[in-house]
């Protein structure tokens, strides 16, 4: 039997003292708090107790929404006409396209992804400055999946006490059966997690058929296997260690959170001095905390919220539910633990009125940046061209002198048609030099020349520009390639130079 489990069982079996009338004192130990963690000590397993309350309900809803989005989004269809896939969200690596509902992004437009990442980061900053670690507590995949895994564990092995006893009990058939059931369920969830991921990268129904038939590409199976492994080990086995040791975000958040940011707070001004409450004892001249340890028993991170804000706390608010339940039973107002700020606690301790300050320099700054970036993104998407042009000038050789002294420059043009229909584009050249223009395949052309580009494709065209000996001026002249659609609704001008070789 595992030594750590034995210690937990010993704690459990010790006759619990009463914290108040009808409230047993839990012997849960905050084994993951910084003070109780020892070097070279194996992890002490945490058996969080299932709580009921508002925050638990919110967390169930958030879990359903986030997992629902993750598993269902690849199956949403979106009609894009005959030349593009019909999957609403698709990262099409083979064809170098990213589809997001009505948005289609080409590799050349990677700045939209940059914008999206900036938006995500600034939103996170703003939310953290206002409400603390909401991300960690509710929406981080590590939190959502760990919550799901603990729920499954709870369903199969029972609540906290039953799980501790099971861990400490000898290996009977019943224990083996329960363990097999639990790990099978975890592995099933883990495989489904990896399985959903691959659907974002190719047509989901096709891949699902291929996966079932065993004919999907090896990379799909490997990806599912890898993500199943990480989901199972991170959500099932490692749990709070990921947040405590592996994740950089708790450290970064220390810089984001100030004493005015909301976070799950033990209201020490109300709770202290804490201690068991005897029947009939007056509540005056003592704190409201009866030291029942239910907040510790409920904590999936294995800490004691009453130690104050700490790196290990993910602000999941389950201790609020646990405490509110106890407060209700002993007829005290709820909210001994609640969303509050450090400065409010300090103010009340000094007897000053507490108030929330949501409008602070940093929240104004974050909100401004957020609105600005969102506006730029919206403007960019709204005015996104479906026509584009890249010009690659020959550099080797830079120019060619012809028998009659004329000079020729070669250009390779990439004509991009991002619309869902084939279109005629018109290419013109603007600049001060009289010239002759040849397009490979068409020969000598008069401008503007009509060039058809297929739907959602790039057409490469090689253009030769020749300037006669007597028209040459200087070594390098600016010229401009101008591409427009038939109706001149969209144009794209690209500046380049014509090099004559003269000094």
């Amino acid at each position: 039997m595992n030594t750590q489990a034995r210690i937990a069982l010993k704690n459990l079996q010790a006759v619990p003292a009463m914290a108040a009338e009808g409230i047993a004192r839990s012997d849960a130990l905050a084994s993951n708090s910084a003070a109780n963690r020892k070097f070279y000590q194996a992890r002490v397993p945490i058996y969080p107790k299932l709580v009921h309350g508002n925050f638990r309900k919110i967390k169930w809803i958030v879990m359903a929404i986030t997992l629902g989005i993750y598993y269902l989004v690849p199956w949403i269809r979106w009609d894009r006409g005959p030349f593009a896939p019909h999957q609403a969200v698709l990262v099409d690596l083979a064809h170098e396209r990213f589809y997001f509902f009505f948005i289609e992004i080409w590799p050349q437009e990677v700045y939209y992804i940059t914008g999206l990442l900036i938006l995500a980061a600034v939103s996170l900053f703003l939310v953290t400055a206002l409400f603390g670690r909401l991300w960690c507590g509710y929406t981080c995949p590590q939190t959502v999946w760990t919550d799901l895994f603990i729920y499954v564990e709870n369903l199969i092995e029972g609540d906290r006490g039953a799980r501790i006893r099971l861990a400490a009990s000898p290996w009977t058939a019943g224990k083996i059966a329960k363990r097999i059931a639990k790990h099978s369920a975890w592995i099933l969830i883990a495989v489904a997690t990896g399985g959903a991921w691959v659907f974002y990268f190719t047509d989901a129904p096709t891949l699902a058929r291929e996966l079932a038939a065993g004919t999907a590409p090896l990379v799909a199976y490997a990806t599912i296997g890898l993500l199943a492994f990480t989901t199972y080990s991170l959500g099932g086995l490692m749990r709070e260690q990921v947040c405590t040791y592996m994740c950089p975000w708790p450290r970064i958040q220390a810089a984001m959170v100030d004493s005015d940011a909301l976070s799950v707070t033990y209201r020490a001004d109300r709770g202290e001095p804490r201690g068991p409450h005897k029947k009939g004892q007056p509540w005056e001249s003592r704190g409201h905390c009866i030291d029942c340890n239910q907040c510790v028993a409920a904590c999936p991170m294995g800490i004691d919220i009453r130690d104050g804000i700490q790196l290990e706390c993910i602000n999941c608010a389950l201790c609020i539910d646990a405490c509110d339940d106890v407060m209700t039973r002993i007829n005290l107002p709820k909210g001994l633990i609640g969303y509050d700020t450090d400065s409010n606690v300090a103010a009340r301790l000094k007897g000053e009125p507490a108030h929330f300050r949501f409008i602070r320099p940093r929240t104004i700054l974050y909100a401004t940046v957020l609105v600005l970036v969102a506006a730029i993104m919206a403007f960019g998407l709204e005015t996104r061209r479906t026509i584009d042009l890249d010009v690659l000038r020959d550099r080797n050789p830079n120019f060619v002198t012809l028998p009659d002294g004329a000079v020729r420059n070669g250009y390779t043009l990439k004509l991009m048609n991002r619309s869902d229909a084939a279109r005629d584009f018109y290419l013109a050249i603007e600049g001060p030099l009289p010239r002759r223009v040849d397009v490979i395949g068409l020969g000598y052309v008069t401008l503007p020349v009509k060039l058809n580009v297929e739907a959602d494709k790039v057409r490469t065209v090689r253009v030769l520009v020749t300037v006669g000996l007597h028209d040459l001026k200087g070594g390098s002249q600016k010229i401009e390639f101008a591409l427009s659609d038939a109706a001149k609704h969209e144009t794209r001008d690209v500046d380049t130079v014509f090099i004559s070789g003269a000094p």
Partner: protein
Amino acid sequence: MDKKPIDEISGTETTGHDWDGIQELNTPLPRWWLVVFYACIVWAIGYWIAMPAWPLLHGYTHGLLNHSQRDDVTANVQALKNARAAKEHELTKASLQQIQSNPDLLQFAMAEGKSAFGDNCAPCHGSGGQGAHGYPNLNDDFWLWGGKLEDIQHTITVGVRSTSSETRQSQMPAFGHDAILKPGQIGDLTEYVVHLSGRAANPAAVQRAAKLFADNCAACHGAEGKGNREFGAPNLTDNDWLYGPNREDIHDQIWNGHGGVMPTWGGRLSPETIKSLAVYVHSLGGGE
């Protein structure tokens, strides 16, 4: 189990060794490290069984998967060929003109031609076909053997002074080296050629060389020195010089009769690749 000695100050296990009251800590390896270490051992054993691992006297153990990177490469090359097969077939059927006038096929041929050019032609002609001393520039309008699509295709296929039986063949005699002409005559001819290209030359020498040119050079270069593509004889009246434009360069060429070799690519590159190369070289600018 007997109790392991513990160091009081650090709380860590010791080795139990004691030197004058100094004890050695026995700090345990981190658990994750041990797990990874053992996992690696298990992985290695599995790898020996599944993959090629051990050298033997003759050969090596192939492993259960019989994996070979050489086979992977062969399969990849074949897969690529299969993916290109349809377009390659179009290339086979289409004439060079048809390739050039079909935008889709042109784009494919240009890509293949560019890649083949980089692999096979760039060492001499330069990465952009810009040429070098003794190696023709393929971007300009000067062609020794013709600049039409078919001419280029034929030159690539048979080469110049190559080992092919149909090679394009011509030989500029080494008039000085082989003592066909006297040094003074070569000096006069040099002036004559400079004069042909429209530059100032010694009139006396030019006059002396007129008959020499008619007797020795005109057969290939033509009476007016305008060259002849039948023999790959360059035009001497223009401003393009394969071996250099200066008097010393021209003198050296008449004296030594340099003639470069272009290998034959027929049989080494597929007809489709040669077609693509012809289209690509034609598109560099000088195509006729």
